[in-house]
């Protein structure tokens, strides 16, 4: 029957509202970072030497940040495993993996923060020219997103411990996982651009 087929046509919704909304949000985030990366590239292309001669003595902590990158990538894997485990109804494992993920995220932020303190000590500040300024704004913008993801995850962990999630109902874990993995996947791009380009 005609009505029947049409009904199926529109009600066939592959994504729930919440999941779709998070994916749409990521589109917006991508454009925000595109704007900032665009600005970075304008400054990078506009200078023959990078860092500019005035910053010749500044060296960005590539190795420590490389380690930090590793931490973040592992956290992306752990949250993915957390989602898998709740899908299999292994609530306890899911809780542990979520906590591990959050810890890795926090560790990333703490290590990055301490690196910033050292860099500021060496004279790389917002006011010292666009090299430092775009570094802090671009990396800082990502750090704010990591912080936001950690706070979001903390709420999800709280909900996980109050037994809200099961294999049938875990959209909270799922949306948080999507966002977390986006923030993780963004980082290597920024790491390569800002620390090596």
């Amino acid at each position, binding site marked *: 029957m005609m009505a029947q087929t049409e*009904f199926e046509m529109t009600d066939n919704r592959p994504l729930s509202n919440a999941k779709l*909304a998070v994916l749409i949000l990521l589109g917006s985030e991508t454009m925000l970072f595109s704007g900032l990366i665009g600005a970075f590239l304008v400054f990078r292309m506009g200078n023959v030497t990078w860092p500019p001669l005035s910053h010749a003595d500044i060296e960005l902590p590539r190795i420590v940040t490389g380690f930090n990158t590793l931490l973040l990538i592992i956290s992306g894997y752990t949250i993915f495993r957390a989602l898998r485990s709740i899908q299999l109804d292994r609530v306890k494992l899911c809780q542990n993996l979520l906590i591990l993920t959050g810890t890795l995220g926090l560790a990333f932020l703490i290590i990055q923060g301490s690196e910033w303190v050292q860099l500021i000590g060496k004279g790389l500040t917002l006011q010292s020219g666009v090299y430092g300024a775009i570094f802090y704004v671009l990396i800082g913008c990502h750090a704010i997103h990591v912080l936001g993801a950690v706070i979001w995850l903390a709420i999800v962990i709280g909900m996980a411990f109050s037994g809200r999630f099961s294999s049938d109902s875990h959209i909270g874990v799922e949306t948080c996982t999507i966002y977390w993995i986006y923030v993780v996947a963004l980082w290597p791009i920024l790491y390569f651009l800002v620390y090596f380009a």
Partner: protein
Amino acid sequence: MQENENISHEHDDDEQHEHAHDDNDTPQHTHEHDDDGQHEHEHHHEESFIRKYIFSLDHKMIGKQFLIYGLIMLFVGGGLALLFRWQLAYPGEPLPIIGASEQYIEDGEVVTKNDERWEKIFESEKEELMETHFPNGVIEDKTYNMLFTMHATIMVFFVVVPILVGAFGNFLIPLMIGTRDMAFPILNMLSFWLAVLAAIVMAAGFFVPGGHAGAGWTGYAPLSVDPQWTDVGWGQNLWAISLLIQGFSSLVGSINYITTVINMRAPGMTFFRLPLVIWSLFIVAILLLLAFPVLSSALALLIFDRLAGTTFFTTTTEGGGDPLLWQHLFWFFGHPEVYILILPGMGIASELIAVNSRKPIFGYRSMVYAMIAIAFLGWIVWGHHMFQSGMRPGMGSFFMTTTMLIAVPSAIKTFNWLGTMFRGSIRFTTPMLHGIAFVSMFVIGGLSGIYMANTPVDIYIHDTYYIVAHIHYVVFGGSLFAMFGGIVFWYPKMYGRYMNDTLSKIHFWITFIAFNCTFFPMHILGVGGHMRRIANPQFYDFLQGFEGMNIFITMSAFTLGFAQLILVFNFFWSMKLGKVAEKNPWNVTTLEWEAPTPVPHGNFAQIPTVYRGPYEYSVPGEESDWIPQAQPEHAPASAGD
């Protein structure tokens, strides 16, 4: 936020199932959408005043809130325009009503009551705003900068987008796609209140020392970066902060719109059965979602430049930035933004014209594809705002070509509107008049756009009144006429009453004539070399001859401004005293007219099923000249679209 949303979702699932049992007895409706609305039941308790009118979660109320918000801001933005129009016609002369007398200004002799007031203001120790901005009622040059900057900022970000996207989007999307509410009602409320917060921050800028932002609505660096050029202090910061907040409001709103349109359409409502206005709002939501963050990134860098001492947009000897970067980022946002302003107008005009011509829209699919093409091309034309910026000339030819390409989908739309009207049984209702005005004004604005797309022509008319004429023909002649038409057209569904037709028609004709008298002569001014954004045209010898034309434009502008009072009077008067409207007063096919009037919480007694496209008017062989989308086929056996 997201989690809370999910919880309420789960609750509502249960409610929804109940609902399906309660209200729907026809078998095809038993598989209701699982979560098409976190609405309360209609037979639930009466909502409190605050829940119903202020922190409302109902998409219709939020839409009306956006409408009132936009109308208030329309008068703020329009008032600013009238102030600087006065200055352009009578440079240096005191404003009417508040201005001091000539004797007082010349020899300090107090003659009128106004003079006494000014005397008091000048004598008081306190630095008053009036004293710094309008001494003796005369507009200072710096004040003039503030006036035109804020006029454009308010009109673009606080009038056209909130009304066309916020008000019509919220009111129409759930009703026209046949669902009970937006996907995320709480986010929807948040979107409105963030917009209010943005408006408050923006308004605060008028009252800080140094006045409001004065670098143009485009906020070009380094003008906007360094107070030494404009003398503006916190005004510019508040401008940037307010737009950042408005960005969050748009983000939340567009996530909501896109999710709702993708996921919550009524049974049978395929994408190609969506009314064109929903298509336009859907496309605009995507543009807003992707364009605004780019402006946000630029605004963030601007705020760092102003407050944290960075030099992203200024060149210094040591590690300096790039002023052109601002222009690139701004216009990468700015050009999609221009289409955000016009696309909903195109959608609304399509509805008005099809309904009142009693004909299907000509080339429905090509209308959709044309809008998609315009939205896409909008991303690769931003450089046409920068022909004169010192950008590489080769880039100029690229942007010239892409810009002229936009004429193709725009022309498709225009001819489709004409094709829709051609040999239709046209009803010259007020909404139709506005629809026709939209098309004709849009054509004038579109054609002048092609002139400016040409680099050699643009080098001459760039930064003149020609571009002011162009933008107003598109945004006032286009978007605002569509908006007026939309208000009159959907008013019976919004408030259950008609707007007074005589007043609506008077409003239309005065607006239409005064609009053309105001903006058409600006083409001539522009070709004559009259620069925009100058406080005193009489200062230049070659502009002396334009004095009469400037006075004429100002007179027309005042007429245009005061004509809008008719609209507002009619709007509020009709709410209580207008003729009561039946369910479907204009005989329209689309779903919003299936809902009872006034539309209850939850919109539809039962979710309608859609059987046909949105524009089945004057179908051959049918008795009635319109077939609602929700009307089943006569013979159920005849499958096929």
